[in-house]
């Protein structure tokens, strides 16, 4: 039994300790519980071709106790079509042994073993003993049945999987009583309630018409119910949904009368699955439907894959690519099992049986790896039981002939078998721009490298990413290693995939310039003219929208994708055919009203949002303002004047630079102690003074009720860990502002904090200014200027502090030593205690405060595979909507959904129909008058407004003089005149939007205008 020697020392790692730095993003998907279970599971993966290595990679990245691989067969050149951990020099070596070191590098916490064996040796029951999960890749059904019979009896989770060209299949048998603890992976639903009916139905009504989101059969429990207190912390009660705001919890007639308040919380109930062994499941299969447009396909593929296996055992080879005779044999075998199976599909399956495509392996490999994690952790709902997937639509419109698909002893033979040599050349000479080299970017480059995208004489891959590599990336951005930390992502990724496929050496151009208006000199017209399409691998909407806009303008196909935990989506944008990314946007998450954050929090995310702002208000903005005052000559006059808060800001600068400037760390502790008093005691008392606990609204309702929770001031106690955590974090951050050395010795903090003399606080009642109508109204001034001027006298002159600067904090969520998340956690929890909200741990707080998007390699792998299946179509220049698919997946459920892209919306002006892909073009820098005249003369349309970028160049209500002046200007001059900025020298055109009316004075929508200058 061979194993990677570098890891021996790591093998005794404490299983309970999870490296949160490395696993950060994945922990937000799986949770600590699931990951702890994974850390006790040994996984065996058999068959180390493209699919096996994809699964092994994803499982190793995710982190299990150990990954063991088995494949003693010798590496062939064809393996390189999809096996990214094998190289040309490995040809002739045993597969598992050859790839082992590269797999072992992925995750130092996961030991990787090779079961060894001799060429031709099949896996045996003896070899699989001791593993919790066994995955068989590309193993004949006969062998699968033998192994599965044993695993089913012995409580071992069994998965089999294989891909054949554009077809894939996988099967799960997790035993007769598999308990899945969290079937959806969604956060438990919770909400406030306003009534509980007494009776057989027991209808519960939610507060404020908030949708409860529950479904029939869900379970809930309650807290904070007044009156019907029996329900607080009750055993989960089964829900029947009555309406969007109401649900029944069954008989409540024996309970006390409801008075007020209460919160329902969903309880996740474990689900027990009864898996059939493969021998039974082959007869009576249960399918996961992956595409509702292909409803009959699973049944056909179910017998098709069995027929292929039978063919292989009869002839000891796969059917030859696009060979009619072999295909007929496969069809006949399949028809023996199911006479209704679709012959066309079966024939295509047989044609492609020797095909081996990186994108299909990525799709299946991502899916199966998640199933492995489900088997280990019981988190999420596993596949029950067969899943078949195909992307037959990816075949070129002109199908290759048999001769075209024969192996030629090339690393691309697996792809040539499906697409033919001519199409392989198209792939090789394709020119793509990959925007982003993070999680999706790495997977994309891996797939492209295996596919040979850009490897031909005319091919190219541009990749850009402004980011450098961080530790939390290593958990899924698998082209990066610990030694690469701090280096540019795009560069490291380009080198890594060129090593994977040397044909790409010199063919990947890595850049650091982010895409955006500032880099249009880099990504200019000639750049876009020179590429065939764009693939986004981005993590933010802003950049996605920008690239979408550029692709629309330059009329380039765009492949778009994204992931969120176990969810992923893909979108294809094709010029003149589909709508663009910007055409339909997901609504962003609704923000919480500011008064809820400021005065009436009722959930932990409210207090976290508050404390995140508090972090800025205490440790970022004051130091920035003081620095701006010291370094910008007219800061007070210019910036402050328009802030509307001049006095407050000057006060703050005076305080930070003069009156409260600490000279020692102890003074920082004092400052923190007083800040504690202000935020968690005084402000709360002031609020309660203004709005006492017994306050009523004008309708006589108690003011503090429903979502408004009456707060309670905190009394500082240095023995309370949350109190002390706050002091420690706040004092250290304050010290950082002044460049003072921090400390974390809690005894010191306790001592200093307890000795602080805290001034007595009396709530202010000074707002009752009594003036009558007869009082003279103060003269109208610009407001409080005198005050401000007085205050500025207290400011030291910038010259007296020449060179002195404060250090504003730069929020960084992933540095565990910088006290940032510590502060936010403590501050949020103190406020939560003020309002009797359940506090949250550091990990949860970090996600919300840092707006961390949960991420896991499995989803990325799958989504990227789907994108590449669409890339085949883009390369083929398919031009019908039904040729393309937008995809939606959720590995937790698991769920696949596909839809045709939405057609570009048609609009009309006059008798002309147009879409977002159309435009007017004007050459030679015309005057605005020329353009106005053109529309009037040619289209009988009157321009009422003209804009370029954010500049409003002309409108119908502009004064006559201005209007005439502008109409006469050359367009470039006009733009510079209005925008007051020069047009950058690289700009060869301007994009102009106009509003027009027709002869009946009706607004008409017309395409945008391109003005060549």
């Amino acid at each position: 039994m061979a194993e990677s020697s570098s890891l021996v020392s790591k093998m005794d790692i404490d299983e309970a300790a999870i490296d949160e730095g490395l696993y950060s993003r994945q922990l937000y998907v799986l949770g600590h519980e699931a990951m702890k279970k994974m850390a006790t599971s040994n996984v065996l993966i058999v068959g180390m071709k493209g699919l096996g290595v994809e699964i092994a990679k994803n499982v190793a990245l995710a982190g299990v106790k150990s990954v063991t691989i088995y494949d003693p067969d010798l590496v062939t050149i064809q393996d390189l079509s999809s096996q990214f951990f094998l190289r040309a020099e490995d040809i002739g070596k045993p597969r598992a042994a050859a790839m082992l070191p590269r797999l072992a590098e992925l995750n130092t916490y996961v030991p990787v073993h090779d079961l060894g064996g001799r060429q031709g040796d099949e896996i045996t029951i003896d070899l699989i003993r001791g593993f919790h999960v066994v995955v068989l890749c590309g193993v004949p059904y006969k062998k699968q049945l033998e192994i599965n019979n044993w695993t089913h009896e012995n409580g071992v989770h069994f998965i089999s999987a294989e891909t054949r060209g554009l077809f894939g299949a996988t099967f799960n048998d997790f035993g007769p009583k598999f308990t899945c603890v969290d079937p959806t992976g969604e956060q438990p639903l919770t909400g406030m309630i306003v009534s509980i009916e007494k009776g057989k139905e027991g209808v519960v009504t939610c507060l404020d018409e908030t949708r409860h989101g529950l479904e029939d059969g869900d379970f809930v429990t309650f807290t904070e119910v007044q009156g019907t207190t029996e329900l607080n912390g009750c055993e989960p009660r089964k829900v029947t949904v009555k309406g969007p705001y109401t649900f029944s919890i069954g008989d409540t007639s024996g309970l006390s009368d409801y008075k007020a308040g209460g919160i329902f919380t969903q309880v996740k109930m474990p689900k027990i699955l009864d898996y059939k062994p493969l021998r039974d499941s082959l007869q009576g299969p249960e399918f996961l439907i992956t595409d509702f447009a292909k409803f009959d396909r699973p049944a056909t593929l179910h017998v098709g894959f069995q027929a292929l296996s039978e063919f292989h055992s009869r002839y000891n080879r796969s059917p030859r690519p696009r060979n009619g005779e072999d295909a007929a044999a496969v069809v006949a075998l399949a028809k023996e099992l199911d006479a209704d199976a679709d012959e066309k599909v079966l024939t295509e399956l047989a044609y492609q049986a020797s095909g081996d495509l990186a994108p299909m392996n990525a799709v299946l490999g991502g899916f199966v790896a998640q199933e492995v994690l489900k088997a280990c952790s019981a988190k999420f709902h596993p596949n029950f039981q067969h899943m078949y997937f195909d992307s037959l639509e990816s075949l070129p419109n002109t199908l290759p002939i048999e001769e075209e698909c024969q192996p030629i002893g090339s690393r691309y033979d697996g792809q040539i078998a499906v697409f033919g040599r001519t199409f392989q050349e198209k792939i090789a000479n394709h020119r793509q721009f990959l925007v982003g080299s993070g999680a999706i970017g790495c997977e994309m480059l891996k797939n492209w490298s295996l596919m040979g995208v850009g490897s031909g004489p005319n091919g190219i891959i541009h990749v850009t990413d402004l980011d450098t590599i961080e530790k939390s990336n290593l958990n899924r951005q698998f082209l990066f290693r610990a030694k690469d930390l701090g280096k540019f992502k795009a560069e490291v990724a380009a080198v890594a995939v060129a090593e994977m496929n040397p044909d790409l050496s010199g063919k990947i151009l890595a850049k650091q310039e982010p895409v955006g208006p500032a880099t249009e000199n880099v990504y200019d017209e000639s750049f876009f003219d020179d590429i065939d399409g764009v693939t986004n691998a981005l993590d933010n909407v802003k950049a996605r929208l920008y690239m979408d806009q550029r692709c629309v303008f330059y009329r380039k196909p765009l492949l778009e994708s994204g992931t969120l935990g176990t969810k992923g989506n893909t979108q294809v944008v094709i010029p003149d055919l589909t709508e663009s990314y910007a055409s339909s946007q997901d609504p962003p998450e609704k923000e919480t009203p500011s008064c809820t954050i400021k005065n009436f929090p009722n959930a932990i995310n409210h207090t976290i949002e508050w404390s995140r702002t508090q972090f800025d208000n205490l440790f970022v903005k004051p130091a920035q303002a003081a620095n701006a005052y010291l370094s910008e000559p007219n800061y007070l006059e210019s910036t402050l004047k328009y802030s509307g808060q001049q006095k407050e800001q000057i006060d703050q600068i005076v305080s930070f630079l003069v009156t409260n400037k600490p000279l020692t760390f102890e003074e920082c502790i004092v400052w923190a102690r007083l800040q504690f008093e202000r935020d968690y005691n005084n402000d709360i008392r002031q609020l309660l003074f203004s709005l006492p606990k017994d306050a009523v609204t004008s309708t006589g309702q108690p003011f503090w009720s429903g979502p408004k929770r009456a707060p309670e001031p905190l009394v500082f106690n240095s023995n309370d860990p949350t109190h002390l955590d706050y002091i420690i974090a706040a004092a250290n951050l304050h010290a950082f502002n002044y460049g003072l050395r921090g400390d974390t010795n809690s005894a010191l903090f306790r001592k200093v904090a307890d000795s602080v003399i805290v001034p007595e606080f009396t709530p202010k009642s000074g707002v009752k200014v009594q003036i009558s109508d007869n009082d003279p109204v103060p003269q109208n001034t610009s407001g409080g200027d005198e005050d401000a001027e007085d205050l500025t006298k207290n400011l030291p002159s910038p010259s007296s502090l020449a060179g002195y600067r404060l250090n504003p904090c730069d929020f960084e969520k992933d540095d565990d030593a910088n006290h940032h998340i510590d502060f936010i956690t403590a501050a949020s929890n103190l406020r939560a205690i003020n309002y009797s909200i359940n506090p949250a741990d550091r990990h949860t707080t970090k996600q919300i405060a840092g707006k961390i998007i949960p991420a896991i390699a499995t989803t990325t792998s799958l989504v990227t595979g789907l994108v590449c299946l669409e890339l085949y179509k883009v390369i083929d220049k398919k031009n019908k909507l039904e040729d393309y698919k937008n995809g939606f997946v959720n590995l937790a459920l698991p769920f696949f959904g596909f839809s045709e892209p939405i057609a570009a919306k048609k609009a009309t002006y006059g008798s002309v129909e147009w879409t977002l892909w159309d435009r007017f073009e004007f050459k030679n820098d015309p005057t605005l008058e020329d353009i106005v005249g053109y529309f009037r003369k040619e289209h009988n349309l009157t321009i009422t407004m003209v804009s370029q970028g954010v500049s409003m160049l002309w409108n119908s209500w502009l004064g006559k003089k201005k209007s005439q002046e502008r109409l006469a200007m050359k367009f470039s001059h006009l733009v510079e005149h209005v925008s007051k900025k020069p047009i950058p020298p690289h700009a060869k055109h301007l994009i102009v939007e106009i509003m027009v009316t027709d002869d009946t004075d009706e607004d008409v929508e017309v395409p945008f205008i391109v003005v060549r200058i």
Partner: protein
Amino acid sequence: MSVSPAVLRRVMRELNELENNPPEGIRVQTVDEDMLDVTGIIEGPEGTPYAGGYFRVKFKFTEEFPAAPPKCWFATKIFHPNVGGNGEICVNTLKKDWKSTYGIGHILVTVKCLLIYPNPESALDEEAGKLLLEDYQSYCDRAKLITSVHATPRTKPVEFNKPSSVDAESPAPSSSKDTSSKAASPSADTATPVASTSRLPATSLATLPTSLSAPTSISSTASMTSLSVPTISRKSASPAPQMSLKASLTSEKEGLTMGPQKERHPSPSPLGTADANVGKPGMGVGLGMASTAGMGGVTGTKAVKRAATGSGATNAEKRKKALKRL
């Protein structure tokens, strides 16, 4: 910031509309070099302590607009329960109730409504909220003082030299036109049923109907259709105008709905209606309306509700008197 052409197009359209047909008491200032640098000016509504003032509201559009609301804040100091010290405005329209069909005009009309009907229950400035609840007179005095100091220019902003759409257009088929001019205020007893929401132009908010039980009439709905704010969307799924109005009301819980009132004599109900968040089922604005569909409608429910809860009445008297003196 790069804003998509579609968004710019939308902003253009809206600015054009606001320039040509501004809602009563609302104007926008634009800057040629940056269309997105929009400043709204709201004329302090008559009959409120903000009368005579002109309040500037700044907009900042994010790249997610219109899917996400723009950032909005008062650039003019104001004493108001729902406006924070930094000018921040607490109104659900700008947060959880945002819809991508809303725009600049809708926001400004909503904010103007907020000046007429402050919502102390969701106070950002809890001192103002407290005063409003406990001592209406003091609240008014204070708000008036701040208005006179910070918001009252010597001459009214030039933007207001141009008539608003309601003034300019031929008489609208509803009562709302009357209200635009102070001189032509309808008699106090004019029973003009107007179901109110922030969706209505501010002009009709100033028309304060007295009829407590009159059903939401078609005429008031018609006045909505003559609105100049282009981004107003209505759930038009239901065939009857009344129904659609209710649908839009229930869909939008801004705490800004109001009851029937007399011109320049605000009744206590505005505050009473602000508790949609805390009401019991059947009491809340939305539920109340739903249950009275086709009957008394909004106004009826309010009346019942107010009658049922007496405690607000004394305060209300005070407020009424206070406002009379203004």
